[in-house]
């Protein structure tokens, strides 16, 4: 199989370049990450992030043939050749396919991604009814791989001000949680022309999410709650 991979080592290279690779491999049931690891045996300078190799940790998010995704759960047979691999767009490149996620996590932390509950902790858990728990489905599964946020043109343009789809999905995850007591503060924080309202429902986030989540719907729910609060 033919591959064309973005290479950039800032210590050595003046500018990034694409390098072609040829790999003798039968796609079979192999995933893209398997092929990248075989390529790394050929050329051990090729740098990537990976960990769980089964779509749980979100480390190996990259731009695969123009579309963000996780290499470890992308079947080789589904890819058109040459397979063009680039780092996630819109973030600074550290080396090859590794990007600096600082800005992404800064936005994630800005939405206070934890339960705010001022009641004294009970003896056991803070209980939820099955219906209350069901509201978190489609929200808690996010693995923060960054595929959605780095495919969002609004984030490319205002990465320092727009929270981005991943952060907003998590913002709604805590607004929707029956145990959280900070809904008003969370809505106040997002009532901002940049932080929430730079979302123009482009829906690239929904298109690329490897966990098939729907950040646009979550953003719509936040907007609905703001409207409900003010009328």
């Amino acid at each position, binding site marked *: 199989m033919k591959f064309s991979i973005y290479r950039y080592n800032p210590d050595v290279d003046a500018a990034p370049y694409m390098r072609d690779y040829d790999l003798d491999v039968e796609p079979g049931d192999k995933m893209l990450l398997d092929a990248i690891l075989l390529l790394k045996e050929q050329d051990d300078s090729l740098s990537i992030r990976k960990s769980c190799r089964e779509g749980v940790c979100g480390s190996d998010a990259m731009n695969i043939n123009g579309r963000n995704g996780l290499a470890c759960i992308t079947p080789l047979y589904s890819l058109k050749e040459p397979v063009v691999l680039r780092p996630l767009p819109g973030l600074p490149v550290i080396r090859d396919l590794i990007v600096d996620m600082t800005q992404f996590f800064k936005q994630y932390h800005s939405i206070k991604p934890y339960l705010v509950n001022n009641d004294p902790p009970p003896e056991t858990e803070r209980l939820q009814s099955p219906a209350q728990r069901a509201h978190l489905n489609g929200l808690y599964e996010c693995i923060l791989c960054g595929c959605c946020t780095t495919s969002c043109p609004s984030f490319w343009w205002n990465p320092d001000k727009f929270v981005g789809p991943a952060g907003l999905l998590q913002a709604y995850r805590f607004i929707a949680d029956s145990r959280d007591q900070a809904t008003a503060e969370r809505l*106040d924080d997002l009532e*901002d*022309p*940049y932080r929430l309202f730079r979302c123009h429902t482009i829906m690239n986030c929904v298109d690329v999410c490897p966990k098939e989540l729907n950040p646009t719907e979550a953003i719509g729910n936040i907007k609905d709650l703001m409207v409900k609060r003010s009328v």
Partner: protein
Amino acid sequence: MVNRVVTGAHYGMRDWLIQRITAVVMAAYCLVLAGYLLFVPQTNYDLWTSLFSSQVVRTFSLLFLMSLFYHAWIGIRDIVMDYVKPAAVRLAIHVLVILALLLYTIWSVQILWGM
């Protein structure tokens, strides 16, 4: 002044909602106008002036134009926010756009009521 990333203007929801409502008004006006042109195909100057001498049509037209201007204000402001970074230049453009749109509103009233 320090160079800091500042957010937290605490507006946005109202504009977002107004943009949706004005879009509905404009869609309704376009449908009505398209319906008129479809069912009264042979229009002429007299028909057209009699149509626009009706207070209902004039008011609906003004409502359409004001919706258009408000919708445009929010859209243009969003574009300026994306592309124009220095606050002073941005404010100047905002003021110019608002003044232009206010002028268009007055002009629309003059045209519709034949003043």
